[in-house]
Each structure stands twice: as structure tokens, then as C-alpha cells.
């Protein structure tokens, strides 16, 4: 039996999995995974991308059938469909949300188990209950709002509200905080505490080790589909977790990046950038070889500002100087041709064509390089293969659709795609969202190399440690205004938070 058996045992096992195997065709992705879930316990599932966490929780929740092995619910063997699992109270909240974009919040929450009054839907009751569920989550979304119109964090909350409305006994959260701000994460943790107290067993998947350390009672680690072990959380340090996941010692997560020399030229300077309703009066400078972090809460206008800089916002105004020359980008292609590139944080919807192969994705942004009248297929392929090497993109078959790549490989491909135009200024928005520790470290090292070779980098991230670990200076935005540009010792979590939440600082101009 698993190591959990020896762990302290104050509650009954709700759901247990023994010796779970899973094959996709000839490809075995899980090689005997064990897990015991106890009521009122948060059980973290850790592993690099592709370790089999998502497949395993899909088996737990009935979306996939195991090829071998057994699931026991309250001691009884079960082979269930996702509907049956849900009825039994085992609910999975997907990493990619499962919401119908055109439905309202209320309709989504009650989808499939609508409350009826006679033949008709009891809209009033469902709206009232939806409002209640959302209230409990501290979520301000209206039950009447369309999913499509909600920010990504609210979509997450709707998913969780949907689960809580179903009297979950086992709640599986697959990277719930990837899209949440710090404040929203706090709300989620409070909610998890409450659910724990009610005796719900929680499976928690996340790459953020701090979170695991904070909320997990037990940790199970998977590596390449193999069960590494289950441990009481208090016995593992973050380093232990990382080591067990990767199976080797990690280098320092954040590489040292030398600050630019005082004589380094100003690569880009932004003066008084505004866009109605999104941000206003933003001004800052970026030196060659510098990493300028951008911190702020979701909705502070960081992404909107960057999109405006590269010419994706036709409503914006302000002046932009590149190496001393005033330029204006009317479109992304002009920014690209001037050596300014932007990596979106939304890989799936804005970054990569999920239904096409890797090569056309790789060359889409730099296609002009490979084409006179016709595309030079050989040249394109050569560049692609070179990029696969450079960026260490690992895909068994180079012809697969991008949608089937892991998040880490997608992120590397996105990086390769943008770097192919050889930009001088690179704006990177959330470079490590939903990516395992190993790949994260690779991307950090890559950013360091870029800076060392004279590129100028703007780094947007909602992971405070990432910003602090990599940036030379940190700009903070709050409600559409640039409230501070911190440097040296000022770069510290609480200080950043004070500016991000508006406790400190008004608009600053450099």
C-alpha cells in the first residue's frame, strides 16, 4: 500500500485509487498510481508538465477509464462515467474551463440540474442561489452576466461555485490559481479551509510550491507517469518537492542577471501613454540590457498598456521613442519591423494556433523573412529545426498539432516564434503560467541570456517572486495608472503590494 497508510489517520478514506494504469494506444502514460483521499484533507498532486497529473484526475472523476487498477469510493469498487462521478460528489474543475461562453453565470452554474417549477425553469430561485454561491466566494460577477464577458478569474469562480452547488465530497482543483490574483487566491484558500471543515476531500494541483506548502496536508508526487510517493506535507520542504518532481537537483531558480551599465543607452522610452478606459498617463524608460518588471493586480492595465505600445490598440495615444528616434506603430507589424515584440499571456487564444502544426505556428510572425513571392519551405524548415534546438522544445513528433503539446513546450514555441524576428525589445507577458518548475527555470535562464546579450526586456507577471527574482527595476500599476517604479531595496513583496493595491503612490512620471 501507499505511504499514506503510515501517515496520521484522523479521518476515513473517501476515495482511493490503487495501481492505476492508463494507455493511450501503445503509449502508457500512467504506470501504477496510488492515492488515498480522506475527508477534510487537502491532498496536493505534484509533478512536472506531462507527469500525468491531469490524466490521473480525469480518471478519478470519470472522464477517462483506467486501463488497469481500481477506484474505491467509500470502500466500494466503482467504474464510473463523469456524470456518475459527479452524482457521487466527485467533481473536477478543469484547467481549461468547461463553460459555455454564451450562457449566463446562473445558467452555467445550474447547467444540467436546472431547478424547475412545474414545466418551467425557476429562474428566480436559481438566480438567488447563484448569487449566494458567488457571494460566498467573494466574487462580484452578476448571475445574469454572460460568461463571455467575465474576466478569466471570475470564470474560475463560476466553476468553483458550480462545484460547491453540487455538494462535492471530493473536489479536484487543477491549477486553480494560475489565473487568479493574489487577493482572489486568498479568497480561494479561505474557501478551501471552509470546505475542509465540512469534511470535503480536496485534490489540489498547482505548480506554485508556496501554495502547496501553505495549504496541503498531504502531497503525492508523480514523475513521468510514475508514482514517486505520498508524503505528509510537513515533512517536505519546497526544495524537496522540486527535487522529487524533477528527479534531480535544480539550479538556482532565478539566474543572476547583471544590471545594465549606467552608460547603457535608453532602448525605449514611453511618454504619456493613454487609452480611454484602460490606462492613462503612463511614462517609463527601458535601458538596453535591462529587465523591467511590471507588477499589478489583474485589470490594472499592464497588458493593455503593452498592447498599446506595440500598436494593437487603435484608441491609444502617447509618444514612443526607440533608441532616440520617435516612432509610431500603427500595427503590430510596424512594431515588429522596428524590433519590438510582444509575447501574449494567452497562449491558447492569442499566442498559438492550436489546430495547426508547430512549424506554421513558429513561422507565422516572421513569415516575411522566408518569403519573396513564395515561401521558401526549406529555409523555413531549417529555421524551425534550429529553433527546436535553441529553445529545447520537446515533442516526439514534430508534425503534431500545437494543441497537443504541454503548456511548457507551447510556451517555448511561442518564445521561439517571437524571437525569430530578432527583436531588440521583448515584452513578455506571464512567461510561466501553467508551466512546471523545470521549464520555468529554462525560461528564466533564457530571459537572463537575452538581457546579457543586449536585449531589453519588459516582464509582466502575477507571480511576485518571478518579478522580484528577475527584474532590475519594477514598475507597478494600479487601476490604469503607473504608481511606482521601484529599484534596489525597494523591490520587495510588501512594498510592491502597497503600490499595486493603491495604498501608496499616485501616478509617477520618470
Amino acid at each position, binding site marked *: 500500500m501507499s505511504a499514506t497508510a503510515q501517515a496520521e489517520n484522523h479521518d476515513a478514506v473517501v476515495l482511493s485509487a490503487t495501481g492505476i494504469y492508463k494507455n493511450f494506444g501503445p*503509449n502508457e502514460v500512467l504506470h501504477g498510481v496510488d492515492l488515498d483521499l480522506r475527508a477534510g484533507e487537502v491532498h496536493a498532486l505534484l509533478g512536472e508538465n506531462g507527469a500525468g497529473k491531469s490524466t490521473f484526475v480525469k480518471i478519478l472523476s470519470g472522464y477517462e477509464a483506467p486501463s488497469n487498477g481500481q477506484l474505491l469510493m467509500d470502500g466500494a469498487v466503482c467504474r464510473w462515467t463523469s456524470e456518475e462521478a459527479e452524482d457521487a460528489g466527485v467533481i473536477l474543475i478543469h484547467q481549461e474551463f468547461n463553460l459555455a461562453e454564451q450562457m449566463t453565470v446562473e445558467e452555467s452554474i445550474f447547467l444540467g440540474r436546472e431547478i424547475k417549477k412545474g414545466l418551467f425553469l425557476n429562474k428566480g430561485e436559481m438566480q438567488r442561489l447563484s448569487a449566494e454561491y458567488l457571494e460566498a466566494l467573494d466574487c462580484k460577477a452578476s448571475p445574469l452576466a454572460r460568461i463571455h464577458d467575465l474576466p478569466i478569474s471570475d470564470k474560475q469562480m463560476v466553476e468553483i461555485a458550480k462545484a460547491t452547488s453540487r455538494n462535492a465530497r471530493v473536489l479536484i482543483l487543477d491549477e486553480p490559481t494560475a489565473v487568479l490574483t493574489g487577493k482572489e487566491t486568498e479568497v480561494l484558500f479561505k474557501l478551501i479551509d471552509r470546505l475542509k471543515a465540512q469534511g470535503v476531500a480536496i485534490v489540489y494541483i498547482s505548480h506554485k510550491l508556496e501554495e502547496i506548502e501553505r495549504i496541503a496536508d498531504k502531497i503525492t508526487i508523480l514523475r513521468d507517469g510514475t508514482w514517486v510517493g505520498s508524503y505528509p506535507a510537513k515533512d517536505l520542504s519546497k526544495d524537496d518537492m522540486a527535487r522529487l518532481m524533477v528527479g534531480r537537483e535544480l539550479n538556482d531558480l532565478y539566474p543572476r542577471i547583471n544590471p545594465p551599465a549606467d552608460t547603457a543607452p535608453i532602448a525605449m522610452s514611453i511618454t504619456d501613454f493613454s487609452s480611454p478606459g484602460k490606462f492613462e498617463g503612463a511614462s517609463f524608460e527601458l535601458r538596453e540590457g535591462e529587465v523591467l518588471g511590471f507588477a499589478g493586480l489583474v485589470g490594472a492595465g499592464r497588458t493593455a498598456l503593452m498592447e498599446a505600445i506595440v500598436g*494593437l490598440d487603435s484608441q491609444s495615444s502617447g509618444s514612443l521613442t526607440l533608441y532616440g528616434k520617435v516612432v509610431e506603430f500603427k500595427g503590430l507589424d510596424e*512594431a515588429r519591423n522596428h524590433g519590438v515584440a510582444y509575447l501574449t499571456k494567452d497562449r491558447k487564444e492569442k499566442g498559438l*494556433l492550436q489546430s*495547426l502544426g508547430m512549424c506554421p505556428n513558429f*513561422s507565422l510572425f516572421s*513569415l516575411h523573412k522566408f518569403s519573396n513571392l513564395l515561401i521558401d519551405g526549406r529555409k523555413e524548415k531549417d529555421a524551425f529545426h534550429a529553433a527546436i534546438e535553441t529553445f529545447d522544445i520537446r515533442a516526439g*513528433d514534430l508534425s503534431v498539432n500545437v494543441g497537443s503539446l504541454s503548456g511548457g513546450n507551447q510556451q517555448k514555441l511561442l518564445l521561439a516564434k517571437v524571437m525569430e524576428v530578432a527583436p531588440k525589445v521583448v515584452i513578455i507577458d506571464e512567461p510561466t503560467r501553467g508551466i512546471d518548475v523545470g521549464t520555468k527555470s529554462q525560461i528564466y535562464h533564457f530571459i537572463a541570456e537575452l538581457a546579457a546579450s543586449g536585449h531589453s526586456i519588459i516582464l509582466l507577471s502575477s507571480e511576485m517572486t518571478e518579478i522580484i527574482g528577475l527584474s532590475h527595476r519594477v514598475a507597478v500599476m494600479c487601476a490604469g495608472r503607473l504608481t511606482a517604479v521601484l529599484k534596489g531595496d525597494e523591490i520587495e513583496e510588501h512594498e510592491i503590494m502597497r503600490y499595486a493595491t493603491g495604498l501608496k503612490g499616485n501616478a509617477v512620471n520618470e
Partner: protein
Amino acid sequence: MSSVTSQLDQKLGLKLDLKTVGPFLALIALFVLGILVNQAFLSTGNLTNILTRSSFIGIIAVGATFVITAGGIDLSVGSMAAFISGCMIVIMNTLAATMEPGIMIVLAGVLASIILGTAAGFVNGFLTTKGKIEAFIVTLGTMGIYRSLVTYVADGGTLSLNRATRDVYRPVYYDDFLGIPFPVLVFLVVAVLGYIILNRTVFGRHCFAIGSNENVARYSAVHVDRVKTLTYIVQGLCVSIATIIYVPRLGSASAQTGTLWELEAIAAVIIGGTVLKGGYGRIWGTVVGALILTMIGNILNLTDSISNYLNGTVQGVIIVVAVFLQRGSWRLSKKKK
């Protein structure tokens, strides 16, 4: 691990093969059916007829492949063909009243056709992109407009090209080069050009990208509106080329000309393996699709064992089976394991 990947490769290869050759299998099956139904099917004359006939729909469908690959749809092509044919005839007849009949008049007609096709395509594209109206609605609208305009121009009847001009123009449809009828040659050239443009140029690649995900395309510095408008212009040009070889066939245009061509063109595109919601397209598949559609009609005319009233049923069944052959291949390949 490596043996797993190679096995995976094999599986993918098999899947890809079935998917790719699906339309070809349907074509071969139809071919065999044709021979079984009537020996006359194999005669040179009949085979030439099939090729020549499929050239109208085929050429239009090549244009439709661009529009559909880029995630659009054009329902107006049939009406557009009728309208352009009508205008060509009126223009050539008007010129014939003042000029000696001859090649100049025909060239003027051809030029008019190209201008009209480009303009009509631009209108569809502009309304879709800048007007931000769904392509389905825009082209449904223009479909009605062109259809009623041609009825108006023809005064409800038929526009006929005057005889002298017609004699000059007639060879464009009826003559051949090295035994290959001109319409077939034009079809071939359009298909080859279409293939090169869709698969080997930046514009073609951008069509795939936009059809696959417009937002990603926009964030990759693709001029989405411009490229989409261009696909409609390509479609308009293809319609114009089709009418240039259609008009000399019967020398006339009426409100009936080109009815349902839009559906046949779309069917040819889909049978050929292009994805209706965009993001993936292939020209040669479209060519095969057009041949399949024409061949069905031809085979039905060569037999009296199927009631005339059931023609639609036979066509419908064959279209669905042809598409199933390539879509169904997904499941087939899995089971083969």
C-alpha cells in the same frame, strides 16, 4: 520511449493517409460505378464532358477554398456568376452595335467580367470585415441582390449574346489545345495557381492562420481584415473566370443561370477535405470534390435504372459518404490498432 514514439508515428501516418486519400477513394469508387452502369461512361467524349462541365464549379470552388479556409463563407457566387454573365452579354451586345464584331469586343467583355468580379468580391469582403457583419448574412444579402439585378437586366427573360460576337467567342468553350478543352485547361491553371498561392505564399499561410484563430493571427502581425477581404476578391475573380468560359457555352444568361452553384461549390470544397469552419484547406481536394459532384450527375444520366425523382437522394447519399470516408477515418484508424 523511442519505440513508443515510433509506434505513435505509425499510427499518425495511417490516420493521415486515410484522411488524405478519402476523396480519391470516393472518386475511384464512382469511376468504377460509372463503368458498371454504362460502357459509354469510359468514352473519350464522355470523360471530356465531365472534365469540361466540372470546370465551372471547380474554378468557383477553388476560390471558395480560400474563403472557407480563412473562416468565411460566400453564398453569393451563383448569383454573382449570373449577374456577371448578364453584364458581360449586355456590354458586348452594346459594343457590337457600334463596332465590327471581333476579338476586341470579346476582350472588352472579359475585362468587364474581371472588373465586376473583383468589385463584387471586394464588396463582400469589405462588408464582412469593416462592416463587421457575419459573412453568411452579407453574402446572403448580395446573393439576393445579384439574382434580382440579373432578372432586372434581363427583364425577366434571357439575355442572349448576338450571333456575330458569339461566333468569335464560341471557341473559348468548345475548342481545345492538344485535345484538352480550353475550359479544362483554364480549370487546371486556376487549380495549380490556387494550390501555389494557398500553400506556398504568405497570403495562403495567413488564410490558414485566420481560419484557425483570428485572434492569434492578429497577435502575429497578420492584417486580418486585409487578408479576409482578399479571399473574397480571389473568390470574385474565380467567379469571373468561370463566367468567362461559361458565357460562350450557351451564349446566354438568365435569372436561372448559376442557381445553387454556391451550394455545389461549398459541397465540392468540403468533400475535398477543407474544414467548413476554417483553418484547413486543400485545393486538390476541392478539384476532386468538383469532379465527384459532376460525375454523380453524369452517371445518373447514363442509366435509367434509377427513377429520375431519386436523383437528389443519390447525390445526397454520395456526398455524405464521400465526406464520411475522410472524417470517419479518424475512428477507423484507431480501430485498426
